[in-house]
């Protein structure tokens, strides 16, 4: 849980940092778009049944590592901020949580040939 809370805070940071440090336009727009999406995925992953959404933050974090170069940021703080957050989000998104309950095989079951809930239903 702590890892997903930290990613939520990092997402909020990405959202507000452009306003605090007067990032250039491209960096600002990027933060305003990517930040809230990171927040959304991290918060949804607070719940066990949707814990796997933590991994949806990987592509966003990788984008934060690339964005300063692709969008040619001019502000050093913007580059450092996005790169640091990108690395941290990857680390925290990789932290799994305790899954205490069972969910009939979870979302993966929907694509499995013989998922847990079908086996249990036969008993």
């Amino acid at each position, binding site marked *: 849980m702590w890892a997903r809370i930290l990613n939520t805070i990092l997402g909020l940071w990405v959202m507000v940092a452009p306003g605090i440090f007067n990032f250039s336009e491209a960096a600002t727009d990027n933060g*305003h778009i990517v930040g*809230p999406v990171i927040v*959304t995925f991290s918060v949804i992953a607070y719940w066990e049944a949707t814990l796997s959404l933590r991994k949806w933050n990987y592509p966003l974090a990788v984008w934060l590592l690339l964005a300063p170069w692709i969008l040619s940021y001019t502000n050093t703080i913007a580059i450092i901020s996005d790169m640091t957050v990108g690395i941290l989000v990857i680390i925290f998104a990789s932290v799994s949580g305790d899954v205490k309950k*069972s*969910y009939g095989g979870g979302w993966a079951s929907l694509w499995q040939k013989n*998922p847990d809930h079908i086996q249990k239903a036969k008993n």
Partner: protein
Amino acid sequence: MTKDAQMIPPGWDYNPATWSQRIPIVILALIGVLIAGYLSLYQLELIDSVWEPFFGDGSVTILNSRISHILPIPDAALGAFGYLVDAVTGVIGGQGRWKKMPWIVIVFGLAVGPLGFVSVMLVVFQPVLFSAWCTLCLASAVISIAMIGPAMDEMLASLQYMQRVKRSEASTWKAFWGVQSEIEKVN
């Protein structure tokens, strides 16, 4: 007791369709109706000003933007309707509705989940387009995000149920709409 046990989906530890699971989501949705309803009153010019404690002209800028009036009805009214759908589909059905009426659970899940995500993104992209923030729009986004996680477990139970239906002799179509005779054929 045995009836309660039957309501727990196979391979699960709990029933995701109990009232204690659903009521909090419905309350959040109703708060969403109030917030979005209030904002749409302003957009429909039924009230003259809108509450904005933090961002100065932010709310006014966003609520009067061209994008917010791109449809025949203002976007906040659309949001209020969306939250109403969430609340109504959250309330309908008993505690076994994940199998007794899969259609309502799946409509509920789609309204809260993917549609909720889209509406959050629409709210959030506003600063990109108009360089302004709107306190109550952000509040409604927070509500939408908070509803998604707790709603998805029930959706999963219904989707797994439909998966079992599909592999049984029961009619997928009838089971989806909750026809009793088909429901009884599947665990």
